[in-house]
């Protein structure tokens, strides 16, 4: 006997993500989901960005890692509220984990929430966390063919950051090929070059993030 069901496999995650997005909107918090391979520089960029916006925006961070609280310690050093989610080996964050984590913040007092996903370019792509923007990082030592190998990740990005540009003289990286791939996979969002450890190279990223944060504070959207 075949019993029809017709239900989205990700329904539970998507339902929670929808609730989260409503909650963020009520609180006026803009939420960014940072996705990249391990070691591309997500935590470094968060540190630089928190420092840059200190005193102007109230920011909190959720750190997702398979294990350890090292990244959360790095963030906490900047006096920023942070919750570490340990996925115990899990390769991505899910909406219910974020739901549990935000219970520890006073959302209404925040302007922005940065979620650092587990380092992985496949699994996090499929899980909506209720975020408003996906920030995708790739670093120059990883090679210029990443957008062609992980097109769906790059396609869903609201901004694409090419990190570790300070290493360009030392690593084989074909910038023209990279830009061509990015252009063909995500025509609306050209890659922005940064060196996450040097704030003076991150101005375009800061400007983009600031526009998103202030835009949301003025107009509750969606």
């Amino acid at each position: 006997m075949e019993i029809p069901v017709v239900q989205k496999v990700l329904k539970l995650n998507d339902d929670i993500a929808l609730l989260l997005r409503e909650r963020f909107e009520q609180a006026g918090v803009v939420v960014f989901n940072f996705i990249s391979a391990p070691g591309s520089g997500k935590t470094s960029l968060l540190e630089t960005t928190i420092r840059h916006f200190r005193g102007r925006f109230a920011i909190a961070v959720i750190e997702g890692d398979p294990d350890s609280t090292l990244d959360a310690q790095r963030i906490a050093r900047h006096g920023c509220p942070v919750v570490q989610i340990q996925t115990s080996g899990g390769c991505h964050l899910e909406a219910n984990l974020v739901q549990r984590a935000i219970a520890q913040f006073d959302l209404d007092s925040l302007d922005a929430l940065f979620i650092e996903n587990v380092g992985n370019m496949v699994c996090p792509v499929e899980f909506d966390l209720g975020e408003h923007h996906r920030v995708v990082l790739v670093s120059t030592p990883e090679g210029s063919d990443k957008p062609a190998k992980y097109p769906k990740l790059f396609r869903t990005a609201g901004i694409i950051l090419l990190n570790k540009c300070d290493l360009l003289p030392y690593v084989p990286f074909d910038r023209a090929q990279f830009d061509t791939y990015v252009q063909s996979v995500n025509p609306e969002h050209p890659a922005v070059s940064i060196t996450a450890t040097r704030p003076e190279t991150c101005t375009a990223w800061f400007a983009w993030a600031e526009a998103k944060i202030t835009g949301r504070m003025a107009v509750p959207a969606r």
Partner: protein
Amino acid sequence: MHELSLLRSVLHKALEISREHGNAPITQITLQVGALRLVDEDLFQFAFDASTPDTPAAGATLCCEKILARVLCTHCESVFPPSEPVWQCPGCGRFGGRVLEGDELILKSVTLADASAGEE
């Protein structure tokens, strides 16, 4: 290996249906999987086989029906089957497009053994 979490949700629903029918053994679970979904069918099957022993789903077949992708070019309104990684419209040559089909990940049906007891 996010297939494991996807599978958990599929099994949860399938076992619920089995329970509603007096724990009838499950013989098949049918999914619809869009070509644009990042799901590895072998991993899915592997996760299934590893999670089902000692449940009414033990020995069931996991059947994944593929749904081909179709994309709409937002410039010239051509509809075309995209090929990864680059979606290029055959009508106007532009890149990108809006997904019409291919993003599905749906639990379509659960098949129970006919000899199941305790149902209407």
